[in-house]
């Protein structure tokens, strides 16, 4: 089995595992984390609590599952924001060229010029911290990424003769973009989407670590890491499990992206 196929298989498996955990948490978790069992606090991993309990006696496995939900939700929605705004902008720039292209792409440069965390702090400072604002902040960052990838791919497609054939058939640039250019970019965009998704997971963990994403009591991996920090000597597993969750999920997404890229044979 080639590396590409192994990578694709392993990546898909890990990603599916986390998505399944997140989905399952919607209906069932081993323990209800809204109820505190102070008496059971800081228990090491055992048969009753596989991943142990935290300083408030909440089951860490249940927290991880709910954290996966936050993580997947924030990353997915921010990718969707990036795709919905960035892709049309990229298509427009490539189709119209000239002044439109300049305005669109320089606007993207403007967003790119901001450090991601700074923008997130800016947004949360104005609108207050929370999952929705984290989604918006990360989503804004995905816009120029998707716009650039789309524009580059679209420019290449525009050099093909079939776009000329479509123009001879009387179609305008926007219709050609929709009917011919976009479908041929889907592979490219799926790969980029996977990469942005993994960056979104990291960004969400980072933002919640500094308290700018989902607010308590909604569990999130970043905040679990933050809270575990003061208890490292006492209960190292508290930091270990959410840390591994971020690591494994991001690794899975990257393997999936790399596998998809190699399979499509492109150099995305």
């Amino acid at each position, binding site marked *: 089995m080639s590396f590409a196929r192994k990578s694709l298989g392993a990546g898909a498996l890990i990603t599916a595992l986390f998505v399944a955990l997140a989905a399952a948490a919607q209906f069932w978790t081993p323990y209800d984390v809204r109820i505190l069992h102070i008496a059971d606090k800081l228990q090491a991993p055992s048969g009753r609590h596989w991943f142990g309990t935290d300083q408030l006696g909440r089951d860490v496995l249940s927290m991880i599952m709910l954290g996966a939900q936050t993580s997947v939700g924030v990353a997915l929605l921010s990718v969707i924001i990036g795709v919905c705004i960035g892709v049309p902008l990229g298509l427009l720039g490539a189709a119209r060229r000239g002044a439109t292209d300049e305005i669109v792409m320089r606007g993207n440069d403007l967003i790119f010029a901001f450090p991601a965390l700074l923008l997130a702090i800016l947004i949360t400072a104005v609108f207050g911290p929370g999952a929705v604002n984290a989604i918006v902040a990360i989503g804004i960052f995905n816009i120029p990424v998707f716009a650039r990838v789309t524009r580059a791919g679209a420019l290449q497609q525009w050099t093909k*003769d079939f776009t000329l054939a479509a123009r001879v058939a009387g179609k305008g640039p926007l219709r050609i973009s929709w009917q011919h250019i976009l479908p041929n970019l889907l592979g490219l965009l799926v790969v980029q989407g996977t990469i942005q998704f993994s960056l979104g997971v990291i960004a969400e963990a980072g933002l919640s670590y500094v308290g700018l994403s989902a607010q308590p009591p909604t569990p999130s991996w970043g905040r679990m890491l933050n809270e575990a920090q003061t208890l490292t000597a006492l209960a190292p597993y508290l930091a270990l499990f959410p840390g591994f969750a971020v690591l494994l999920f991001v690794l899975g997404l990257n393997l999936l992206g790399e596998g998809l890229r190699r399979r499509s044979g492109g150099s995305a």
Partner: protein
Amino acid sequence: MTALLEVVDLSVVIGAVRIVKNVSLDVRAGEILGLVGASGSGKSMTALGIMRLLPLRASSTGITRLNGATLSAKSEAEMRAVRGRDIGMVFQEPMSALNPLMRIGDQVAETVRSHRRVSRAEAQGLARDALDLVGLRGEQGALDRLPYELSGGQRQRVAIAMAMVLSPQLLIADEPTTALDVITQAQVLLLLQGMVRTRNMGMILVTHDLAVIAQLADRVAVMHEGEIVEQATAAEILQRPRNAYSAALLAASLLKPKRAEQRRTDAPPTILQVRGVVREYPRRRTSLWHPAAPLRALDGVSLSVRAGETVGLVGESGSGKSSLLRVILALEQAQAGDVSLFGETLSGARGATLSRLRRSIQVVFQDPYGSFDPRWTVERLIGEPFFLLDSPPSNAERRRKVAMVLEQVGLSPADAQRLPREFSGGERQRIAIARALITEPAMIAFDEAVSALDVLIRAQVLALLADLAERLKVAYLFVSHDLQVIRAIADRVYVMQQGRIVEEGAAAAVFDSPRHAYTQALLAASPVLAVNPQAGA
């Protein structure tokens, strides 16, 4: 006389496929062996197999001997000593054969210095001699020039100089002139021939073009599906091919000039009229104070096409043929002049008028691979120009029309649900023709539509076009750099040079008694396959 190069039972295998099957051939000193065949017949792989330069995944068996020394038994290190010193090689693409960052003198000298312990000055001296030999003398062939400063023909001469600098006994040239213009091609072929004769070396000329073979080769080996199907002297093969495949290849290469139509008393009406078209492209600014003079691709071009007529437009690459086509198709705007179709101005037309006019002029492009969206089915691709109709046909009607044009171009209606990648190059060009026919246009423009096809396929497509013109009374504007193709299909010809039409007239008149010096040069340079009574019958 013993052979300079002997190849016995050479086979090349890639994966599970045998690309070259038991090829045996030999080349004597002072002899040019032509290796011909369609693309994919294994001729390039044979050449690479002799040099032991096969791709990593490929493996070869068989014996090759050069002057008695067995090449196939040599180690890779020993082979490196042979390459360049005993066997020189010239490839097809002059643009990528040279290192763009290296001065041409150094590139030629590199071959010397990797084989002999010589000083830099000595190597440069040998490089100078080699460049002189290939006709790059004085200013033109200055050792410190960089590849981007040279034309395609000059680059190919540098590549030949690199192959010739150590006076190898054998030269392998793989399609050395395919990427060059006819006039340059003639010069390069003459150069290669002269070197082989004066230096008594052997040469293998790999090509798909029988006309080039006819001009140069002493003996010919015809390859088909990895095997040599016939090997004989050039005269024999061109006069009396014994193998069925060589005969077919020869017949397909002999494009017969189109017979002049009976002059009709009622001249058909003019459908396309181009008057004084000027198209300029902006050039990069080089001065802060003055804007750069634009590049004038079309300089006052006028031409006309009558109903049902086939008009040829010939010229070298860069002469403005494609720009003219784009202006005619209203894909680009001209700076001056106008294009009219049925007396209505096409240039500047918009919306419904433009759609209506576009319906009657369709196009077939050069590249059979790039001209289709790979994700669309044939039915959807062919139906795309229906977009031009005010009331597009219903699904059933649409299907019926697509089936009809598919049959007209010799494909099956069942092909409608397949994807373009399932078709060969020739079939794709048929699909492109079907797409052009769907709106029942009065005229179809062809942009080098057969130049990417193998000779056999090219002959079939040209026959199809002649047949369609006859049956459907559609006019063609046929753009090509290949004079033989134009001669085979056109009634009337325009010759273009540097953005101007330099000569026009009936095809027979232009080809038989060209008036303009440029037309004369083009005709003199283009290799001609002599028509003989048997094959021409």
